[in-house]
C-alpha cells in the first residue's frame, strides 16, 4: 500500500514536471522567431500625408502574409521609425535598423530624396532595398542591392502620353508646346521624356521655362502660353502650383488641345478640391488601382472598408507593391541571405499589383509608365490600350 502510494506520488511528481518541461519546449520550438523588416518613413513633417499611406500599405501586406502562415514559415514583424521627413534622419535610421536592431530585411523609404540617401547605406551593408528610388540618377550609381519595384521615374513620366499621342492622327496632334517646370530634381527628371517625345512627333517647343517653388502666380505664364498659341501645355509641378496653373488657364480662357500635369493630378485632392476644373488633365503613374493585375481588387476593398477611401491612394498601392517584390525575392531565394535575394531578383520576374517586372543590372524594370486622364472626377487609365478604363477626351473641351 505504502509502496503503491509512493509510486503514485513519485510518478506524479516526475510526470508533471516532465510534462511541463516538454510542453514549454514544445511551445518554444513551435513559435518561430519573427522576421523583422525595418526602416523609416516620414510619419510626421512635410511628407507625412503620403508616408502614412506607404506605412498602411506595408502593414496591410504584413497582416496578409502573417494570416497565410508568414514568410518562409515565420511571422513577419515590421519595425518602422519616423524620419520626420528628413533624408539625413532616414540615413541615420537605416544605419540603426541594420547595425543596432539587426533587422532581417530592409524597408523601402519615401520620398525620392530619402531613397537616394539610403541606397548607398543599403549597398554598404549589402542589404536588399526595394523602393521608388530617386529617379534615374539614383539608379545610375552602380548600386547592386537596390531595386525599383516599381520605381517612380521622372525620366519615364510622359512615355505613356507620347505613345498614345502617336495613335492620334498627325493633323490632330498639337503643333506647339509650352513647358513650365518646377526647378528641382523631380521637375528636371521630367524633361527627358518631353524633349524626346516632342522631337519624335515634330512638336515645336515654344516656351521652356523653370520656376522655383513656391510659385507666386501662374497668370503671366499662361498669358505667355496663350500669346504663343501653344496647343500643348506641360505643367510640370506638384499640387499647389498645379492648381494655380489650371485656375490661370480657366481664368484666361486658355484651352490647349491637351494639358499634361506632373504629379498633382493623380492625388485624390486634385479632383476633390478642383472639382470639374480638374477634368481632362493628363499625367502618368507607375501604379493605378484599376490596373488588371491580381491583388488590386483587394486593395480597393481594404481602402474602402478600413480607411473609407473610395479609391485606394497611390502610395498605399506602392507600399504594398514594394513589399510584394521583396517577398518574392525572399521566397525565391528561400533564404534571408541578402545576396541570394538580390541574385534571385536580378534573374527572375516578379509579379506585383503594378505589373510584372524583370530587373536589369541597375535594379530597374524596362521603361514603362501608365498614362492617366482625369475624366468626370476620376483618374482613368488611358495607355497602354489593354489597361484602358476610359476613352481619352481629346482635344480638351473648352472651359465652361
Amino acid at each position, binding site marked *: 500500500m505504502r509502496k503503491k502510494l509512493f509510486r503514485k506520488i513519485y510518478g506524479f511528481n516526475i510526470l508533471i514536471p516532465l510534462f511541463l518541461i516538454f510542453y514549454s519546449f514544445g511551445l518554444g520550438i513551435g513559435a518561430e522567431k519573427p522576421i523583422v523588416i525595418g526602416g523609416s518613413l516620414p510619419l510626421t513633417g512635410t511628407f507625412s500625408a503620403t508616408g502614412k499611406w506607404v506605412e498602411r500599405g506595408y502593414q496591410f501586406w504584413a497582416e496578409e502574409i502573417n494570416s497565410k502562415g508568414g514568410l518562409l514559415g515565420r511571422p513577419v514583424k515590421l519595425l518602422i521609425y519616423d524620419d520626420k521627413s528628413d533624408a539625413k534622419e532616414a540615413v541615420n535610421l537605416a544605419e540603426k535598423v541594420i547595425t543596432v536592431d539587426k533587422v532581417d530585411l530592409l524597408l523601402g523609404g519615401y520620398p525620392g530624396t530619402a531613397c537616394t540617401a539610403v541606397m548607398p547605406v543599403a549597398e554598404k551593408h549589402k542589404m536588399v532595398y526595394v523602393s521608388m528610388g530617386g529617379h534615374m540618377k539614383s539608379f545610375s550609381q552602380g548600386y547592386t542591392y537596390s531595386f525599383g519595384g516599381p520605381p517612380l521615374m521622372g525620366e519615364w513620366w510622359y512615355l505613356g502620353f507620347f505613345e498614345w499621342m502617336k495613335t492620334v492622327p498627325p493633323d490632330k496632334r498639337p503643333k506647339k508646346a509650352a513647358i513650365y517646370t518646377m526647378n528641382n530634381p523631380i521637375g528636371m527628371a521630367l524633361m527627358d521624356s518631353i524633349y524626346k517625345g516632342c522631337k519624335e512627333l515634330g512638336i515645336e517647343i515654344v516656351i521652356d*521655362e523653370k520656376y522655383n517653388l513656391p510659385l507666386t502666380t501662374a*497668370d*503671366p505664364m499662361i*498669358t505667355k502660353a496663350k500669346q504663343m498659341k501653344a496647343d500643348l501645355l506641360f505643367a510640370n509641378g506638384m499640387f499647389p502650383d498645379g492648381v494655380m496653373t489650371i485656375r490661370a488657364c480657366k481664368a484666361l480662357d486658355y484651352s490647349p488641345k491637351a494639358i499634361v500635369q506632373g504629379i498633382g493630378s493623380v492625388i*485624390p*485632392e486634385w479632383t476633390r478640391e478642383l*472639382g470639374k476644373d480638374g477634368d481632362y488633365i493628363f499625367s502618368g503613374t507607375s501604379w493605378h488601382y484599376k490596373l488588371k493585375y491580381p491583388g488590386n481588387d483587394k486593395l480597393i476593398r481594404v481602402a474602402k472598408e478600413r480607411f473609407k477611401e473610395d479609391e485606394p491612394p497611390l502610395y498605399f498601392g506602392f507600399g504594398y507593391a514594394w513589399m510584394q517584390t521583396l517577398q518574392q525575392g525572399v521566397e525565391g531565394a528561400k533564404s534571408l541571405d541578402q545576396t541570394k535575394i538580390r541574385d534571385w531578383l536580378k534573374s527572375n520576374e516578379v509579379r506585383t499589383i503594378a505589373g510584372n517586372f524583370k530587373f536589369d543590372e541597375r535594379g530597374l524594370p524596362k521603361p514603362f509608365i501608365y498614362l492617366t486622364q482625369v475624366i468626370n472626377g476620376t483618374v482613368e487609365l488611358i495607355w497602354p490600350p489593354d489597361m484602358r478604363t476610359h476613352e481619352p477626351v481629346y482635344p480638351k473641351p473648352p472651359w465652361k
Partner: protein
Amino acid sequence: MFNLIVIIQSIVSGLLIGGIFALLGVGFSLTWGVMKVINIAHAAFGLLASYIAYWGLNLYGIDPILSLFLSLPLLFVTGLFIHRFLIQHITRSKDIIVASMILTFGLAIILENIMLLAWTPDERLITTSYSSKAIFLGDIIIRISNLLGFILSIIGISTIYLFLYHTKTGKAVRATWQDPEGAALQGVNLQKVSMIAFGLAIASSGAGGVALAYMYSFNPPSHNLWLIFLFLVVIVGGVGSIMGSAISGLLIGLITGLSNAFFPMQWINVLLFGLLMVILLIKPEGLFKK
C-alpha cells in the same frame, strides 16, 4: 504686342498678390515694432482663418469673406489671451526678441499639429463660384478672387492705419512703441495697449490668411512658406511701419511681376532675396522707417 501684354499682366498680377502679402505682414510688423515680439506663429494664425473659411464654405456654403465675421473676433480674443498668459511673461526677459521667437515657434508647432488633427495633412483649396473667373480688360485679366483679396487688404491695412493714427488707444500704441517709458509716465497702460495691439495683429493675420487662401492651396505646414514672405515684407518696409509694410508688399509684388516678364522665372527668388540683402546692407532699418 506679345511683350506688352505679358508685361502688363505680370505687373497687375504681381501688385494684386503684393497687396495680400502686405495685409498678412502688417500685423507681424506691428507686434515686432511695438512689443519687440517676433511672432513666428503669425502666419499659422492666418492659416487657421483659412481653414475656418474652408470649413464654412464646404460645410455650410458660407462665402470666405463672410467667414471673417467669425474668425476675426475669434482671433482677436485669442490674441488677447495669448498676450495675457504667454507674451506678458517674456516681456521681462533680457532679450525679448529671442525669447518671443522661441515661444511663438513653439506656439506655431502646436497650432500646426492642432490643424493636422482637425483637417489632416491633405491639401485644401478654396473653390467658390468665382474662383476661376476674371474681369477682362482687353487681353489683360484681373482675377476676381485676387481682386477680392486685394480689396480686403486695402480695408485691413486702412483699418489698422486709422486705428493707430486716429484713435486714442492707437495713439497710445504708437507712443508705447516710440518711447515706452515716456508713454508710461503719461499714464498709458503699457500691458493693456500691448495686449490690444497683439489682438489686432493676430486678427489681421486672419484677414491675410483668407486672402491668401483665395489664391493658394494650403495644408497645415503652409504657414512656414508664408512666414518667409512676412519677413520679406517687414524687413523691406521697416519694422513697425504700417505704410512701409503696405508699400513693401506692393513692391515685392511688382518685382515678382517684372521678374516674370523680363527674366527667367527661376530668378525671381534670387532677385527678391538679393533685394532683401541689398536693403539690409544699405538701409537696415527698412526703406520706409522714419
